[in-house]
């Protein structure tokens, strides 16, 4: 029975505790170095983990958190350094080998077979899965396992039907089913709603109390302060320090993480100019054919940022796509600088001065497989100097890329290699570089800072504010209320595709915005 295995591991963890080994060393990494393409992602990193603790790993994007975790999970083989599990030196040959030693990782990109059911995913590769596993029997076992750990997920459901939060529960369950005692969670909260994050924290605590060791990767200070027992901070591939959470304070951690003080961008008062983007009565269907944007009116003027707030999935993506020309408009009209672009192609819109930063920066924002100069040229290659007639000038593209790299502070560029190797923050800088260098009249920015670290967020916001001063009309769609309040000259709240309310930044408080986002009307006080 597959369940026995998990049960045995649970029992082993219990024994650890009664032995007084709780708090004993679960894993120790010494002098880990790991490079990609000659650039160190981890350099001489030491890290230790104790039984029964939640150990946060904090660091900006690209600091090397995932790399370090992947080394412990057997995915990456370190160039040098030593790994000890339970005091014994090991060489982890593969993720499976690590799993056999009780180390399991929930990756940022889940490792579930989407087309399989939950039960099939748990059975996959499990040593106790019978050759002719009966579906019913499997599903019964999985349901039981889920109940035991309070991680319930319908065993017969296909993974593709599950929400991200549910998929994450299945990943954790899968690892518990394998009897892991060291559980690594790589940025688990990045994809969760606040409620889901709460319940994840409760699960983490329960598992730690059973004697397991948990590594919790995050770049959110509040969460780290809230759930962890200890914290280690990585910066630029190096370990900058570890401490008990009781000795830590957010300001100090932030400084360790960023290594410098952050300037808060200020937003100078400027007079807004003439209306540049006018949207009237816009209605557009979502992917499933149901109306996702309903009768929306928005006007954005030159030198103005209009912030669109709302809980994800309330029509923001569809609105942005309708403006960019990527989604069919059912009713209503869009004007750009006085020209009706309702039926215009994306290319015509771009020519009229529309810039677009899509929310899915890896897939829609960039051609990840192309090198940076090509990506930066995507909207400019039709004109000299990048091309003459049908011929592209590689030299001009490279020169231009180097200039933009410098001006927009894109870091970690490896010339000639795919753009997808850049970290999220740098990819976003590159997208902004491409869009802003075209000198747009209107910029639509969807979730411009989602998932980025503090420094990158500040840089992106500063860019947006500079662009506003330069006279661009900006429509910024964001789920981050702080961002909305900090940057916007006017705020609209979307709820189920409708505009729930319009506010001046002075009127907006998190409470009022929260009410509107939840679909409650607020009396204009």
């Amino acid at each position: 029975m597959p369940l026995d295995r998990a049960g045995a591991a649970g029992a082993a963890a219990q024994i650890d505790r009664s032995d007084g080994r709780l708090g004993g060393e679960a894993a120790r990494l010494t002098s880990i170095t790991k490079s990609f393409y000659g650039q160190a992602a981890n350099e001489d990193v030491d890290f230790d983990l104790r039984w029964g603790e939640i150990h946060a790993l904090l660091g900006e994007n690209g600091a090397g958190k995932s790399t370090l975790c992947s080394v412990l999970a057997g995915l990456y083989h370190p160039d040098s350094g030593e790994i000890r599990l339970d005091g014994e030196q090991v060489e982890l040959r593969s993720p499976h080998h690590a799993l056999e030693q009780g180390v399991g990782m929930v990756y940022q990109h889940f490792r579930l077979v989407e087309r399989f059911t939950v039960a099939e995913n748990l059975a996959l590769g499990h040593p106790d899965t019978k050759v002719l596993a009966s579906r019913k029997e499997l599903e019964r076992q999985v349901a039981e396992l889920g109940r035991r750990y309070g991680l319930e997920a319908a065993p017969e459901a296909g993974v593709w039907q599950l929400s991200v939060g549910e998929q994450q529960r299945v990943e954790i369950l899968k690892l518990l089913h394998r009897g892991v005692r060291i559980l690594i969670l790589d940025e688990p909260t990045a994809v969760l709603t606040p409620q889901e994050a709460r319940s994840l924290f409760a699960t983490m605590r329960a598992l730690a109390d059973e004697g397991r060791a948990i590594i919790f990767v995050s770049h959110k200070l509040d969460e780290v302060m809230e759930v962890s027992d200890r914290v280690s901070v990585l910066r630029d591939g190096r370990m900058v320090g570890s401490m008990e959470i009781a000795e830590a304070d957010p300001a100090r951690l932030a400084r360790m993480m960023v290594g410098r003080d952050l300037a808060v961008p200020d937003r100078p008062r400027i007079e807004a100019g003439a209306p540049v983007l006018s949207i009237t009565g816009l209605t557009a269907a979502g992917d499933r054919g149901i109306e996702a944007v309903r009768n929306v009116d928005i006007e954005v003027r030159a030198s103005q940022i209009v912030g669109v707030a709302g809980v994800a999935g309330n029509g923001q993506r569809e609105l942005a796509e309708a403006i960019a020309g990527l989604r069919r408009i059912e009713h209503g009209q869009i004007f750009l600088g006085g020209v009706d672009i309702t039926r215009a192609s994306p290319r015509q819109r771009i020519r009229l001065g529309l810039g677009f930063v899509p929310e899915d920066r890896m897939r829609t924002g960039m051609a990840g497989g192309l090198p940076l100069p090509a990506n930066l040229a995507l909207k400019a290659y039709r004109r000299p100097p990048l091309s003459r007639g049908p011929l592209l000038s590689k030299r001009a593209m490279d020169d231009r890329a180097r200039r933009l790299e410098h001006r927009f502070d894109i870091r970690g560029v490896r010339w000639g290699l795919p753009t997808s190797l850049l970290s999220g923050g740098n990819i976003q800088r590159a997208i902004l570089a491409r869009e802003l260098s075209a000198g747009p009249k209107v910029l639509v920015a969807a979730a411009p800072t989602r998932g980025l670290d503090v420094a990158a967020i500040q840089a992106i916001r500063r860019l947006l504010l500079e662009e506003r001063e330069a006279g661009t009309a900006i429509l910024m769609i964001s789920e981050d209320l702080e961002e909305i309040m900090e940057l916007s000259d006017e705020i609209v709240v979307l709820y189920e595709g409708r505009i729930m309310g319009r506010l001046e930044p002075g009127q907006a408080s998190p409470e009022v915005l929260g009410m509107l986002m939840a679909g409650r009307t607020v009396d204009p006080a």
Partner: protein
Amino acid sequence: MNESVILLSIVSAVGIGTPILLAGLGEMYTEHSGVMNLGIEGMMLGGGVVGFWVSTQHTSLPLALAVGAAVGALFALVHAFLAVTLRVNQIVSGLALVITGTGFAAFIGSLNDSALTYERPLSSFEPVFGEGMRDLPLVGPLVFGHDWVVYLSWVLVAASAFWLFRTRWGLSLRAVGEDPAAADTVGISVTATRYIYTMVGGAGAGLGGTYLIAGIFSNYQHGITAGLGWIAFALVIFAGWRPWRALAAAYIFGVLRNLGFSLQIIGVDIPADFLNALPFVLTIAALILISARSSAARKYSAPSALAVPYSRESR
């Protein structure tokens, strides 16, 4: 229209459908592991010509089929090495295999000009069932009229459906083709799985090729497969990567293949090239129909990692 013509064309469709089915089943395994092998035509020819040669020497059809399958698997091993280990573009590697296999067959064929024909059909190709059963109306020719390779192919279809969708091994195989990273983390060797099932695919093609040359034509000529390998490739898509559907599809393609002949008998003349294109037209139509319904698309679409090489440390 003459009823016996229809019956005859269906029965002979089973004949020509069987090599397509065998090669297609093999390719289905390969593709479920996430490897695409375009080289079926080459493996059918290469495996088939050697299998045929064995049959002319030993008059043992089982041995000939086994040798044909083994040679097909060896050809596939080259593809596995290029595609899995070296991560070469699978389209390029597959096309190279077509050329290599065809050339190899032509070479063997030219060496053995005299030995590569039968004096008379081998006894192994006699129908399995007695005359009494074969003479039954309708079911006689349709069900009881075949040689044992046809029945073997039916058994293989049933066994494949079971293997792929009812066993632990099938689950692992499909996981490798869907999401190799997920399979890797739970301890399924992506490399071994892809090698093994790529070779299984080659064996299927070799089997089909041997049956085609030794069983149906009883002699070898240059380019004798005449595009059947490509039809087998289309078959996998048309069948939505499912064995039972492949069985039906193979016979539909077989009927189309023979249609020109049958139509000529009854006096309708349609260009053969047009009819030869029909399996591909049908495959495209099936793709359109399937993609129109999202539930069907999920069930009958290609393995997600098809033709995508896997490397643990890349992202």
